[in-house]
């Protein structure tokens, strides 16, 4: 089976010194039947006292509090994974059948849903493809138009967006058609940023679909976080005391070993 080496490195630079900094990070990859962890490390600086736990969606989370003054905050995660076909057998949690904050449909999504014409008896694999094709006929990839707070409905109305928006729209349409679906944040091969895609449920297992590239996921996607939508999957969240602008630099690199 293929082995992938991944590196995620982030650095936040603050324009002024800050303190009382609390953070919640989702940096560590899942270990499951589609990806086996060979090795995994993380680094946080300054670190404060770190607590490692798991949230209700199964994500590993690192939380901490930094009391001292600091100008920069760095966090990174790296390791090696062995990857297998993207099928994850799991009991279905019903929350993935219902609307969530970023995927709540309104007029535009409901109208597009009406246009989806599942004439034949399709299974969820075929429906997922159908939905992704439809999305790709309606929106084009463009960065900087939408933000982390953009909903599926808003992105669809704009006709533009990034991977997060593609995923939200697909999740919304899946759930409207009784296909359980969830949001995934992670890394793909190459160099760049983190990525987002969709998992839909069929036959007792989760399957991956990447609506941004309009393909069913076969292998080699590294999952870091999953949830109802982006709101459950943010890689880094933080709150600090002080008046400062912040600049975030991120590097993600995934290569075969």
């Amino acid at each position, binding site marked *: 089976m293929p082995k992938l080496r991944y590196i995620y490195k982030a650095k936040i630079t603050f324009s002024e010194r800050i303190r009382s900094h609390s953070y919640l990070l989702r940096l560590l990859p899942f270990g499951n039947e589609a990806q086996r962890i060979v090795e995994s490390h993380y680094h946080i600086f300054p670190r404060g006292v770190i607590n490692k736990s798991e949230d209700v*969606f199964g994500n590993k989370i690192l939380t901490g509090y930094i009391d001292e003054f600091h100008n920069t905050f760095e966090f990174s995660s790296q390791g090696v994974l062995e990857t297998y076909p993207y099928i994850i057998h799991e009991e279905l949690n019903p929350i993935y059948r219902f609307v969530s904050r970023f995927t709540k449909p309104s007029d535009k999504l409901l109208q597009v849903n009406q246009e989806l014409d599942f004439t034949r008896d399709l299974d969820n694999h075929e429906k997922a493809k159908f939905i992704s094709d439809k999305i790709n006929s309606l929106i084009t990839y463009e960065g900087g138009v939408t933000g982390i707070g953009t909903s599926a409905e808003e992105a669809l109305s704009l006709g533009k967006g990034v991977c997060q928006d593609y995923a939200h729209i697909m999740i919304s349409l899946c759930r409207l058609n009784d296909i359980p679906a969830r949001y995934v944040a992670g890394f793909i091969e190459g160099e760049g940023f983190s990525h987002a895609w969709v998992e839909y449920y069929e036959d007792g297992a989760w399957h991956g679909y990447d609506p941004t590239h309009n393909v069913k996921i076969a292998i080699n996607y590294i999952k870091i976080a999953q949830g109802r939508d982006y709101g459950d999957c943010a890689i880094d969240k933080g709150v600090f005391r002080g008046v400062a602008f912040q600049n975030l630099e991120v590097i993600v690199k995934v290569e075969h070993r």
Partner: protein
Amino acid sequence: MYDLLVKQRDTVNKWMDRFGVRFGIYKNGTFKEQLFPFDPIPRIISNSDWAELDEGLRQRVKALNLFLYDIYHDKNIVKDGVIPPEFIYSSSGYLPQCEGITPIKNVYSHISGIDLVQAKDGTWYVLEDNLRIPSGASYPMIARNITRKASPETFQNNKIFDNRHYSSLLRKTMDYVNVDNGLEVILTPGRYNSAYFEHSYLAEKAGVLLAYADDLIVENNMVYYKGLFDKKDKVGVIYRRISDEYLDPLVFESTSLLGVPNLFQAYAAGNVAIINAFGNGLADDKGIYYFVPKMVEYYLGEKAIMKNAPTYLPYFEQDKRFVLDNLHRLVIKDVAEAGGYGVMFGKDMDAAKLEELKELIKKEPRRWIAQEVIDFIDLEIIEGDETVSRKSDLRVFVLSGEDTVVWPSGLTRYTRNPDSFIVNSSQGGGFKDTWVLKK
């Protein structure tokens, strides 16, 4: 019974003003704090009525606590088909983050505010269960304090249950769940909150700290009160007056400045008690309300003592047809709204408006409930030199700790507008003291 007290009403009002018994209202984007109008004529509840309410409300709150535990663990009530899963998972009050977490001593709703009305035939009906942050207990407390001083004879002549010990009931509730004898705090969003008077008054009377979000930090999954000179004291229980979605910006609404980052992790680790627990909003949901009498039977194997107002759920096909046919005489509530917003009376709507609402109900049946309009009794209030009748309700407070107790009083709210049925303080209503007779 209360003539002497009514004569003293100017004195009473002067003292209310001096103590700052206020209620803040946001109107058109600006914050205005105004005196919470007080009417000196008390609501009087007979001892026999109270005995039934006391038993019925304890039963209801016990069932609601069991329901919250069940939903965030095994969900037997869903598996057994008593409540359809949609009503859980699509409720904005349901927080999946709470799955599998058991609050300290398994108490979810430490302080429950149950809103009641009394129909003209004497029957009491529950209109709403408030299991998030029911406010209002401080108002009858301070009113009693002041009225007793203004007219001591009134209280010598009448045998009424005292209600000024609410703060000790609250303190006992906090003590019961306090983790490792930590500090006890009331967490307030600050003075621009509508109930800021209450936060400060309860903190003072219960002898606990009034804390602002800035005062609390979470380190190593423990909550600390950060005092002067960076001294850190461990906090064991937080009576928070900030709603779930603003309470931890790293788990919920990330733009919230009112919350404490990583508080949820400390709670999940069992290192701090939160009053009321995270995730209680589910039990407040107006759709879930319909199922409360069924919960009583399901969890306690008893028939529910407290009655719901007759309620229809358009989610069920049969109810939907009934609601659409009878809309003109029903009251319709949007389940997502609170504080008296999103409440519509069919009788006040013209044909076009009714049609519009019918379409909305057909489009999103789960979003609405419909109820029969209860002809509830009016209470007398003093307006100028006259006595007039107004609609009113009663919020009774039930505290759950080692025991479940009902505070023998309550917040009686009345509408000042003679044509209105909506008594919420946020809609400009006034309040009365509530007397429970000892005999």
